[in-house]
Structure formats: C-alpha cells, structure tokens
C-alpha cells in the first residue's frame, strides 16, 4: 500500500502526489496534494493514428515516385513528417495540460479544449459533499483508471476528472483534505 502523503510521480506523470508544481491562481498557503491527468493508456489511439499515417506515407511514396520529381517527393515527405509531428505535439499538449488539481483548499479541473479553449472549474474543499469514483470496462479494470465526480453544495460547480488513474486513491486524497 503506497503512502499517499509522500511526494511521488507515477504512470508518466499522470498521478503526481504532492508535486513541486505551481499554478497561476495558487494562494500563498495553498499546498498541492495531487495532480492527475488521464491515464496514459487512454492516449494510445492518437499514438496509433500517427503510426498509421506514417505507414500510409510509405505506400504513398511507392506510387508517387512515378508522378513526382525527387525534390517534390522530398518536400512532400518533409511536409507529411511535419504534419505527423504537429499532430503528436498537439495531442500531447492537450493531454499534458488537461489536469485535475487537488489542493489543501480547492479541487480544480483545468481543461484545454483543442488546446486553445481554456476552461477552469474549481470548488472549495469545504463545499465538497459527495465524491464518486466510477470505472467500468475491460481496459479500466485492467489498468485501474476511471472517472471521479466531485459534487459540491450550493451553487458551486460539480467537478469531473475523466479517465484518471487510481480513482479510489483520488477519492481518498480528497477525503483526507476535507476538514
């Protein structure tokens, strides 16, 4: 059983306990207890898509060599390489910056839709009423990830962390922060 009060990082930084990170609206005496991201296994589809495009590019090269000059083929390949690189980087940024932050004062859900649209929802930890961890399906059972729903009292927003690793530990950490 891992001690959740000791700083640690696991699963490619998708579950960081007490990290040495900072966020823009952090208060002076506010300590980050946990930063969670989607489980890395949920990112496999876009990684495979990139590989598929590269394989497709190989076949296109076989046919295109009869139509294009060497220079044209070279720029086509560099362009496609740049496209795949951009695709990977875009998805990585979307993965890396969509985080859930649990601090000693608040629960924050930071989302960047398509990288350029920012949405931040937060709830004071004292207003948290109910926390639910849900996981279902073969993959989530195998890799231990799921959704965590944080319901709050009054007009404050309910917060959802989607596909986060170790959902039961996330619930445990939020519960331990509630005064």
């Amino acid at each position: 059983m891992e001690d959740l009060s000791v700083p640690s990082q696991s699963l490619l930084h998708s579950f960081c306990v007490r990290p040495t990170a900072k966020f823009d609206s952090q208060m002076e005496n506010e300590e980050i207890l946990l930063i969670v991201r989607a489980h890395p296994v949920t990112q496999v589809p876009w990684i495979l898509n990139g590989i598929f495009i590269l394989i497709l590019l190989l076949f296109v090269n076989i046919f295109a060599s009869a139509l294009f000059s060497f220079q044209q083929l070279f720029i086509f390949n560099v362009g496609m390489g740049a496209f795949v690189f951009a695709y990977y980087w875009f998805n990585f940024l979307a993965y890396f910056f969509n985080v859930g932050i649990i601090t000693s004062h608040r629960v924050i859900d930071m989302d960047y839709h398509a990288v350029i649209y920012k949405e931040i929802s937060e709830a004071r930890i004292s207003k948290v009423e109910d926390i639910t961890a849900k996981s279902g399906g073969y993959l989530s059972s195998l890799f231990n990830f799921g959704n965590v729903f944080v319901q709050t009292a009054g007009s404050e927003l309910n917060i959802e962390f989607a596909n986060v690793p170790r959902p039961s530990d996330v619930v445990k950490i939020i519960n331990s922060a509630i005064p």
Partner: protein
Amino acid sequence: MQWLVDIFSTNSSIFDVLFKLFAVVISVLYLIYALIILRQSRLMLRAIDENEGGVIRFVSFLQILLAIFLIVLSFGII
C-alpha cells in the same frame, strides 16, 4: 496508372508551379499554426508549471524551425 503519369509529364511546368504554390501556402499555414501553438504553450505553462516548461518551450520552438525549413524548401522547388 500510365495515363496519370502522361498527364503530369505533358503539363509538367504547370504542374510544377501548382505544386510549388501549394507547398508554399501549406508551409505558411503551418508556420502560423506553429506560432499559435508556441504562444498557447507559453500561456498554458503560466497556468500550470511542473518543471517541464523548458522541454515544452523547446519542442514548440522546434516546430517553428521546422515550419521555416519547410517554407525555404518550398521556395527552392523548381
């Protein structure tokens, strides 16, 4: 397949110009996209910084260099 090769070879100069134009336009659009991503990654790092900021800034900048390389390459096509 041969008929397709013939079309391109008989109008090779027009095809080359169109290819060059297309490559330049796409490269410029890629540069604009890379600039937006660089700017946005800086903003995102301001929102949350987990000590990986240097790597993220570097890779975003690398994309701009790649875009500039593409533009230079596109202009260089005969």
